[in-house]
């Protein structure tokens, strides 16, 4: 098979992968934080909240489709979801947006259509359906958990100790207060300056976690290798697991992962490709570390523990439904 790599070549793979991922993701993180800062500075507190439906279910559905209007990948959606939460949008809606946006955005849809054209497999609609289904169910779990926590003293106590299923995306109350202070008196120059300063704060909050995530992802690719991942995981306990783990570890951009999914899994396992394309944009190594800097390390565990099996199950259901047609 492929020649075994020496330590120098592995270091080369590591550097190439890390540098490529950094060049691919840092601009999107900058763009995402800039959009989020513009929203924060230009829109008075409560404006966005009024645009969203007040009832939980319609609000979650609104969050699901919002990403369709943003041609950005997952690195840009984390600061935006965090900003939604800061604006008083329910956590469940912010989570629905966070998970669905990288899949429903136009770039991801187009690349999936192109990559799987001519295969006879309707991967783009399958990916959309399974992605939206997973994001919806995750948001629903969070909404129910939030309401239960409000109603139950035991659950509230668990939540206070960071053990509940919660997504406190905002930790910037003081920063928000500074933005609101003197809003009426601000001129254009002051407004632009405030956008820049808010964006810089958000960027420095997030970038260190993103870079740590990229380091881990690059190291895994260099020292484990995607071939080993494929060969080691493709047999037991199945393609769903194989696809999910490969997506989580490889940390590829959602705007181009369809091509890699096709080469990795198709035609041997369409189900593995679907699992790869649904979980990867929602959560991978780099985003887990990026998100853990936002929500706290304790809350990442429950999120992953629910998301991994849930996305696999939803993929299986939609794939089985399509196969039965």
């Amino acid at each position: 098979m492929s020649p075994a790599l020496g330590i120098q070549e592995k270091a080369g793979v590591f550097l190439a992968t890390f540098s490529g991922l950094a060049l691919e993701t840092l601009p999107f993180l900058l763009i995402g934080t800039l959009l989020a800062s513009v929203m924060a500075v230009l829109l008075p507190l409560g404006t966005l909240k009024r645009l969203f439906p007040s009832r939980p279910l319609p609000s979650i559905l609104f969050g699901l489709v919002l990403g369709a209007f943003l041609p950005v990948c997952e690195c840009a959606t984390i600061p935006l979801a965090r900003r939604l939460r800061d604006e008083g949008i329910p956590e469940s809606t912010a989570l629905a947006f966070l998970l669905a946006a990288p899949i429903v955005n136009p770039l991801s849809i187009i690349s999936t259509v192109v990559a799987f054209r001519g295969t006879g497999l309707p991967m783009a609609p399958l990916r959309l359906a399974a992605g939206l289904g997973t994001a919806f169910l995750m948001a629903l779990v969070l909404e129910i958990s939030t309401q239960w926590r409000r109603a139950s003293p035991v659950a509230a106590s668990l939540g206070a100790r960071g053990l509940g299923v919660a997504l406190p995306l905002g930790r910037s109350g003081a920063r928000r207060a500074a933005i609101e202070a003197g809003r009426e008196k601000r001129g254009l120059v002051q407004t632009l300056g405030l956008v820049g300063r808010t964006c810089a704060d958000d960027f420095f909050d997030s970038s260190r976690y993103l870079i740590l995530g990229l380091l881990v992802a690059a190291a895994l690719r260099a020292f484990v290798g995607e071939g080993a991942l494929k060969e080691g995981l493709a047999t037991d306990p199945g393609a769903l697991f194989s696809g999910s783990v490969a997506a989580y570890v490889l940390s590829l951009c959602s705007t181009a992962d369809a091509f890699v999914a096709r080469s990795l899994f198709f035609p041997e396992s369409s189900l593995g490709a679907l699992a790869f394309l649904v979980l990867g944009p929602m959560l991978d190594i780099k985003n887990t570390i990026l998100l853990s800097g936002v929500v706290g390390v304790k809350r990442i565990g429950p999120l992953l523990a629910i998301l991994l099996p849930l996305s696999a199950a939803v993929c299986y259901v939609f794939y089985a439904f399509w196969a039965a047609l």
Partner: protein
Amino acid sequence: MAAQGRLSVGRLARVVILLALGLLLLALVILGGVDELIHPRSRAWVMAGGLIALLLALAEAGRLRHAPGPGGGLSAYLALPAAMVLGILYLQSGGLAHGAAAGGASAQAYQSFVDSRDREETRADRAMRGDRLVLEGDDYWPLYGRVFMDPQAARGKRIIVQGFVYHRSDLPPGHLIVARNLMWCCAADVGVIGFVLRGGEAGTLADNAWIEVEGVLGTMDFDLAGGDEPTLIPLIEASRIAPAERPASATIFP
């Protein structure tokens, strides 16, 4: 926000980091050098990121006497320069792309990828009707796809192709792959594509050496993707193998 006071070293570090990041992103796009790391279609995004970073540096420079708030931890100051230094090290080393390619075992599966984006007649279709195929520049990927799609139809055609030497232990003795790196998005998904060839001194050439090959296309049964059943793939019966310069654009971008 902290009250105004002495110059904040933390804030100054942020300005330097943002300036360096912005200038690096812009320089990589303007001066070239990103093609080994990201797909050319991402240049606009990198450019936008560089401009935003410079604007943020400007905004940060306006509050040098304010201490950084929460989130201005030391790790941020270490992580970003680390990213830049590693990126620059890679660019300076130049030849590491081959290592990256060899690391992507999935890449052999690209041979099964058929370029189905256009059904209209293209330059590649017209070339396929001739008896001589020259795989270079933008013609490489469409011709590669068409030859692999129907190896029988390409039998007997003369082919000229450049690539780097890539030996695989499961190839018969005296065979090698004249390979290119293929990138969908960024260096994290780079893989190897190429043609198996035999003849000349194929068995003795050093890995990663750039060569130009001229020969006649035949076919062979081989499991190029790895782990699957052997399938019919193109084979170059080489009549000439010459050393070649590494082309300016060595990576193939579908």
